[in-house]
């Protein structure tokens, strides 16, 4: 297949969000080298449709493709997303928002959350949330685009989308096909390997057609047809720290007004998501089958919908974990075939994006180089492990004792890497710093403080801050409040910027 030692054809096995994101990324970035990109998918096989809620990184992916944001948001019925609200996680009745932005600002090397804790102890500050522009905006139903000027309060945050992942895949399919990606309808029934190297040589379709290629991207979802079944990548099971293994999902009618945040409400044996799009609300109940039956889980979900359901709830079964290698020989796993982490922090699309970025970075122009494979696997391992730690934190840092499930996750052994981070924050309020890894300081602070992990000791320099400095910080809350009140409502921005046709018809 390879001509003159150069890679000529890429086969993407599977469509869905992962498949079409990969196709779009490669068609924009790699295809100019004269490569053929073929995506094979079957209408008979449903897609999971990961990630209705996303992270700000997705915007950079879309920008690198040159997508028009308004067009994309209208097509996918998207709303803006400034963070995730967590209800009932620390204790029943608690609520906090994990914002896509900073809290306050540091002063002379002193982290803001230490200053806040000092003010809090003096009775001059209640919630740290009041020092976060995106939190206050979320709570008041407002939205504004971030400012470029770093002196502006509106420069302190970013935003993501809440969108219809199925339509996002459609949008990217249109984009990809316009850039020469060939789509083949067909079901993969066999995989051919070359005897000498063990590389994948071709995919055999139900029609009998053989699809030859040089590089194969496995986007076959949980089945992991290529990376798992063929190449033998082992699944590293993380259900010991992330025990939820099922989810029911159902959409319901919208309620007004829409909000610019996703909600994750803790339930007796898991949690429930709520993702408001322009034309509907996505809902789901993630739970642990060891502690709750399917019927009970479905009942909890259907009993708590805010609008009329749009169909019956769909059951998904999964296991948390990742493949021990995500690139083997000429096969690369992207999306659910590489691993699965529950969508508590909307990381599914991010992990697809991270894999595409790493793949492009090490994209073989000829024979696969083992050094590229090693680096890809190293980077993806880091990504998965650091997301895992952050997800486990939500469960483990709880005070809930009202169910077997919460007793289990509160007391379970956790990875050493997370135990280290938690102890460092609990004892001294320091967030462990890493260069690579998705979640930055404010994200960790949001969950730590939102789930009542107040540091036992704070930076002793805070005690020496003058009253003028403390008063300035105390006053920043009012500045943020005034700034947010001057913004348009989230609905107004959506209506003016990116109304979806369906919304216009219904509204």
């Amino acid at each position: 297949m390879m001509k003159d030692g150069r890679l000529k054809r890429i086969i993407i096995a599977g469509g869905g969000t992962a498949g079409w994101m990969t196709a779009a990324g490669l068609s924009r970035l790699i295809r100019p080298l004269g490569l053929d990109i073929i995506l094979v998918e079957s209408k008979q096989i449903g897609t999971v449709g990961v990630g209705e809620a996303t992270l700000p990184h997705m915007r950079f992916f879309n920008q690198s493709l040159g997508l028009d944001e308004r067009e994309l948001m209208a097509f996918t019925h998207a709303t803006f997303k400034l963070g995730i609200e967590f209800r009932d996680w620390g204790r029943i009745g608690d609520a906090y928002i994990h914002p896509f932005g900073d809290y306050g600002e540091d002063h002379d090397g002193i982290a803001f959350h230490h200053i806040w804790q000092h003010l809090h102890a003096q009775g001059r500050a209640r919630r740290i949330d009041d020092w976060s522009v995106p939190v206050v905006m979320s709570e008041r139903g407002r939205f504004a685009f971030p400012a470029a000027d770093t002196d502006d309060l509106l420069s302190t945050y970013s935003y993501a989308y809440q969108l219809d992942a199925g339509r996002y895949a459609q949008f990217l399919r249109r984009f990809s096909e316009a850039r020469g990606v060939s789509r083949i309808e067909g079901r993969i029934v066999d995989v051919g390997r070359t005897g000498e190297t063990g590389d994948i040589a071709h995919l055999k379709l139900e029609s009998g057609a053989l699809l030859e290629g040089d590089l194969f991207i496995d986007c076959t979802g949980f089945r992991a047809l290529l990376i798992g079944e063929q190449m033998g990548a082992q699944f590293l099971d993380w259900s010991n720290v992330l025990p939820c293994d099922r989810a029911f999902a159902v959409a319901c009618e919208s309620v007004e007004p829409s909000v610019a945040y996703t909600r994750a409400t803790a339930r007796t044996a898991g949690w429930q998501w709520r993702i408001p799009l322009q034309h509907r609300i996505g809902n789901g109940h993630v739970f642990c089958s060891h502690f709750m039956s399917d019927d009970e889980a479905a009942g909890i979900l259907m009993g708590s919908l805010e609008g009329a359901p749009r169909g019956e709830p769909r059951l998904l079964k999964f296991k948390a974990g990742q493949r021990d290698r995500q690139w083997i020989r000429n096969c690369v796993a992207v999306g659910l075939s590489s691993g699965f982490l529950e969508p508590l922090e909307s990381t599914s699309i991010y992990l697809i994006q991270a894999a595409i970025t790493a793949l492009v970075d090490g994209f073989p122009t000829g024979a696969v180089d083992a050094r590229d494979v090693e680096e890809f696997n190293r980077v993806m391992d880091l990504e998965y492990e650091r997301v895992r730690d952050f997800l486990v934190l939500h469960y483990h840092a709880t005070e809930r004792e009202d169910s077997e499930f919460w007793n289990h996750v509160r007391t379970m052994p956790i990875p050493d890497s997370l135990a280290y981070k938690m102890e460092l924050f609990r004892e001294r309020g320091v967030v462990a710093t890493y260069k690579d890894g998705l979640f930055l300081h404010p994200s960790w602070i949001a969950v730590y403080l939102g789930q009542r992990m107040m540091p036992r000791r704070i930076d002793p320099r805070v005690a020496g801050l003058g009253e003028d400095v403390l008063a300035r910080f105390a006053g920043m809350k009012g500045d943020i409040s005034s700034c947010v009140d001057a913004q348009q409502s989230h609905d107004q921005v959506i209506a003016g910027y990116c109304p979806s046709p369906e919304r216009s018809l219904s509204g």
Partner: protein
Amino acid sequence: MSMPEPLRANILVAGDSLAAWMGALAFSRWRPELAVAVAPYHGEDSPIADPVVIARPEFRKLMAQLGLTEADLVSECDGTFLLATRHAGWTGEAAVFHQALGTFGAPANGAAFHHYYQQMRAAGQAPSYGTFSLATSMALAGKFIHPAANPRALESAFDYRIAIDAAKLRDLAKHRALAAGVTQFSTKVMGTAWSDGRIRHLLLDGEQSAEVDFYLDCTGTARGLTGAAGWTGIQALPYRRETGSVETGDGNLSLATVTASPDRWTRELALRTRRVTETFSCLEDGLAHFGYLAVPWRGNCVALGRAACDLPALHAPAFSLLTRELGLLGALLPADPATARVEAREYNRRALTAFGHMRDAQALFEAASARTQGKPSPDLSDNLARKIEQFTSRGRLVMYDDEILSDSEWIACLLGLGFTPECVSPLAMAASVDAVCDNYLRFAKRIRQAVERMPDQQTYIQHMLAEYAKETGPDAV
């Protein structure tokens, strides 16, 4: 006859070094309510090991916390703004390259500039890599301005270091520390009494003792408080150092040069009033003493500066590491040292990471030089081995947590030392080579034009000092 009462304070800094007085000044600013004392150590080596220290950008944050300004450093410490280092001779007599902060070229289509540079080189249309660096171009022309605040301006695309007279900085730190209430003990530290992993008290000259909450070992290579326990030696050539200095106010202040030959290397750089030359020559039979403390924060004692880590002088590591150590110490400052187990653990983790990165930056040069001379390569850490392997395979730069050198410095050094990528990013391959050459040569022209408009550093500093004099008056220090 009864023993005299122990001298008391909250924090005792042992040593008379730059690290000692910087540490004392830092604590006096961070915790003005505490009693900080400094005591010399009886066996301390020369308190000023480096005639010149080079402050990296990271120091600017710390500087603000210490109440120091750039104008202080320029005015009182003979400081100059260092924009680039010209390296010559590491991989052969003719091999020259520049290490500078800030961007080289500009990324395009998601690929970093050095990938396009390889294409230009292959097409025979590549001037030196430094041509595409504003900092390097400014340095070669002896120019200086501060970077523009507007990130879109070309003049924002660089950063700088500050070369400082180490003795004068020590004096300034000492002056400011004493003014802030730090006490200077005249009696020397003679010994240390450890018990259960903590210092119980220090033995001072004249049968005195000192008993405090927290100790800083700033005694340099004597490591007077921490001792040799836990010292991890590293494989590095031992050096003899010879220092020369010429009084002059002329010449290029923005550029340092490092010239290597098989058995020595020489660094020359300009302070405001003199040029300093240091030659480091290999000792065939010398004893390598380089290394680091595996546990720089132990119990109630933290080793700073050379007491914690001593590395060969390339990249001027001592002050970079001192800056990192003080920054970490500030962020992890214990309210009560007795309960600082978690802080110490995190400090040690991050300090050791920094030591490793700095060592790697130097080992890279040794490896390149050895390769050229057909000598066996020094042992490389896994991190450095991976960095070299990934870069030479396809120009991918692996950066780790808490690096000290910037990515642009690593790339300039890797390329300059002959670690050429076998192939480039496919993102860069999509563009036509003619267009790449055309675009970047125009970019280089813009740099040249921008540099022409800038003042030379002598003039820039004169203006700066005139403003400083107006603000502070003649008796500022």
